[in-house]
């Protein structure tokens, strides 16, 4: 048996050494092709396991690298997020400054730090400015969109602000284009206010914008601050129970940067603070109405609708409690 095998092997050797095309070489090629195919398949299956010894050490390196990259990724994500939030804050501050300079309000900026729980049914927020920052009770609080509310309580470094939408709040409002006045009161819902015109025969259309009428001395509400837009009117003209639903410009669920008006403007800014309205007809109307208002109601040379670059603060000896309009607002906003 063994001898036979040795002889066969030797025969192969001799035949192979002799060279040339023979029956052996073709058989060899065929077997080699079959084995090659099997090897290929096997190596595909085994490929994850090759070089296991070597890969354990590189795996350590790689996991360190992965950890490093993950840390870097987290850092960059964090940076991106803070950049985005910084940008949002900067935009909010820009808007606030624009409103403050157009309306010539002197504001102290603050940030909302706490919100009253909804189950108290009160719409109040806490801001991070207090009596040490010059905040006093009944100052008006605004942001870049318009009226936010008024200061209710003051602590040394924080204050409580009651929002416009709170059911206890009532603001004297004026329709921007028609000069009609009325009372805007909170409903306790964040997206609607009630507006009742003092003159039940007055004309009011959906889309009319409202601004604050202004309290005596600018407290609790300074004049000319955008309040909201009429979205619905119930009752017909002449009816006593004629109430309009107003959607506030300020989204109270998204409050971050606000400004407390520490000194109201000398002149009523009228409608100049209102954002330009969408739609050609509306914007024309506002643009046309404004200069006439200015001429009629403001001192000459006091062009409030220019985005003023000059400092908004007037000399400190100005009479602050200059009446903005007649006495109606004391009953409206009276505390």
């Amino acid at each position: 048996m063994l001898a036979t095998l040795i002889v066969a092997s030797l025969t192969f050797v001799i035949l192979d050494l002799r060279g040339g095309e023979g029956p052996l070489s073709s058989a060899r090629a065929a077997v080699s092709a079959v084995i090659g195919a099997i090897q290929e398949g096997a190596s595909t299956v085994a490929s994850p396991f090759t070089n296991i010894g070597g890969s354990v050490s590189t795996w350590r390196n790689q996991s360190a690298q992965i950890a490093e990259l993950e840390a870097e990724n987290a850092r960059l994500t964090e940076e991106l997020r803070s950049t985005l939030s910084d940008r949002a804050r900067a935009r909010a501050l820009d808007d606030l400054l624009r409103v403050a300079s157009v309306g010539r309000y002197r504001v102290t900026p603050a940030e909302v730090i706490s919100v009253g729980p909804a189950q108290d049914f009160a719409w109040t927020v806490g801001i991070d400015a207090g009596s040490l920052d010059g905040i006093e009770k009944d100052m008006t609080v605004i942001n870049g969109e318009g009226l936010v509310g008024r200061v209710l309580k003051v602590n040394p470094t924080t204050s409580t602000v009651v929002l416009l939408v709170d059911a206890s709040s009532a603001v004297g409002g004026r329709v921007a284009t028609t000069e009609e006045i009325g009372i805007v009161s909170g409903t306790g819902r964040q997206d609607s206010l009630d507006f009742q015109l003092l003159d039940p025969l007055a004309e009011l259309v959906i889309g009319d914008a409202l601004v604050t009428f202004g309290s005596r001395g600018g407290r609790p509400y300074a004049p000319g601050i955008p309040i909201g837009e009429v979205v619905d009117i119930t009752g017909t003209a002449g009816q006593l129970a004629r109430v309009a639903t107003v959607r506030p410009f300020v989204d109270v669920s998204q409050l971050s940067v606000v400004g407390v008006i520490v000194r109201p403007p000398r002149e009523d800014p009228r409608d100049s603070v209102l954002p330009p309205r969408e739609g050609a007809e509306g914007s024309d109307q506002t643009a046309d109405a404004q200069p006439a208002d200015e001429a009629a109601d403001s001192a000459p040379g006091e062009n409030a609708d220019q985005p003023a670059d000059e400092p908004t603060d007037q000399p400190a000896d100005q009479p602050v409690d200059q009446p903005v309009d007649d006495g109606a607002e004391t009953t409206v906003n009276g505390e």
Partner: protein
Amino acid sequence: MLFRQIVVIGSLLLAAVVLQTTVLSRLGLPGATPDLVVVTVVAVALALGPAAGALTGFLGGALLDVATPSDSILGLASIVLIAVGLAVGVAVDREDSSVWTLSLIAGAACGAATLGTALLSAILGSERIIWTVVPGVTLTTVLYGLILGRVMIPLVGALSRRLVPEAFLD
């Protein structure tokens, strides 16, 4: 009531009030704000009994009422939360119930506290209670209370067992 117990309860409540007013109320969740303070009162009442529950309710309500953004009637929340702490402490046996049952009790307590606050405020002449809004707020506060209870009840239980073992109800 042991001094140590009061310190533990006070710190828990302070954390709960700060978290509730600065974080939970700003999440923008639909309906109510997750009522962490009520759940804390329930958890303490379950762990330490009705007397501690009532004390927690009183302190928690007082803290809520004086904390910055609040404009509620001072003392109202205390009355409601004392009732919650006392009732839960007397009526519920922690050992006999599963943690989910206890969480459900916490949720129910949140709902009861919301309704109680609304009712008392309305009686005392608050103009803020709009009854069409109350059901939605109550339902969501039950749901949030259930979820918070699942976390807070075991947590306060473990804390009490470690920090005030002499008062812990086994």
